[in-house]
């Protein structure tokens, strides 16, 4: 039995080791699975949340991109509309100006025509007046200048025509 003599210290050590092993087995049996299950569930939840967050982020980015595209499209349409409106306004303005120019030219031409006609009428009237005046003067001069010899010549010419 001498060979089997074990000191108290070694005994304590062995007992402690056995206690630890027993405790480990008991704790593992009782706590490991629930804790692992809890940790797995937490891990899965975190992964899901991360996935959802990622999806939400992606969705948000897609929405933002879509809105950005819409805004760009709206801007382009607005610019196009403004350009078209400006172009139309310029065309209309040019047309209005052209029409106004034509009307002004017509009015001017008509005014010139009327003025020319009026001038011609005045000249014709003046010619008439001058002619009238000239013949009045001629009558007055002839009244003084016609002699009896002239009268005789007229009578001779008349009867020469009928008697000849």
């Amino acid at each position, binding site marked *: 039995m001498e060979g089997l003599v074990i000191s108290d210290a070694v005994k304590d050590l062995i007992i402690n080791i056995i206690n630890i092993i027993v405790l480990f087995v008991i704790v593992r049996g009782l706590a490991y699975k629930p804790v692992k299950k809890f940790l797995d569930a937490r891990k899965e939840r975190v992964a899901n949340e991360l996935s959802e967050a990622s999806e939400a982020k992606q969705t948000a980015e897609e929405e933002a991109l879509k809105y950005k595209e819409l805004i760009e499209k709206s801007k382009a349409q607005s610019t196009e509309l403004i350009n078209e409106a400006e172009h139309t306004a310029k065309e209309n303005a040019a047309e209005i100006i052209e029409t106004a120019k034509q009307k002004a030219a017509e009015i001017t031409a008509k005014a010139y025509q009327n003025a020319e006609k009026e001038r011609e009428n005045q000249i014709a009237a003046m010619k*008439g007046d001058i*002619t*009238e005046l000239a*013949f009045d003067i*001629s*009558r007055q001069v*002839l*009244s003084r200048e*016609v*002699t*009896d010899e*002239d*009268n*005789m010549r*007229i*009578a*001779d010419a*008349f*009867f020469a025509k*009928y*008697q000849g």
Partner: protein
Amino acid sequence: MKTAVITVASNMSDKTYDRICNGFAEILGEISFEKVIDDKIIGGFIAEIEGEVFDMSIASQIAKMQKQISN
């Protein structure tokens, strides 16, 4: 008997008037004359015989010329 109305200006002498009367008498035969003095005719004469007018006045010649020029 026919009657001729002879219109003359006051500057016409009796000699010239007689020349006119004799001229018409030679052409038309027996005819009486009525003398009218009107200085508007300027010179020459206007004879009206049985509604027919012979206008040899200077005034009518001037009027014709004036009409031609005006037209």
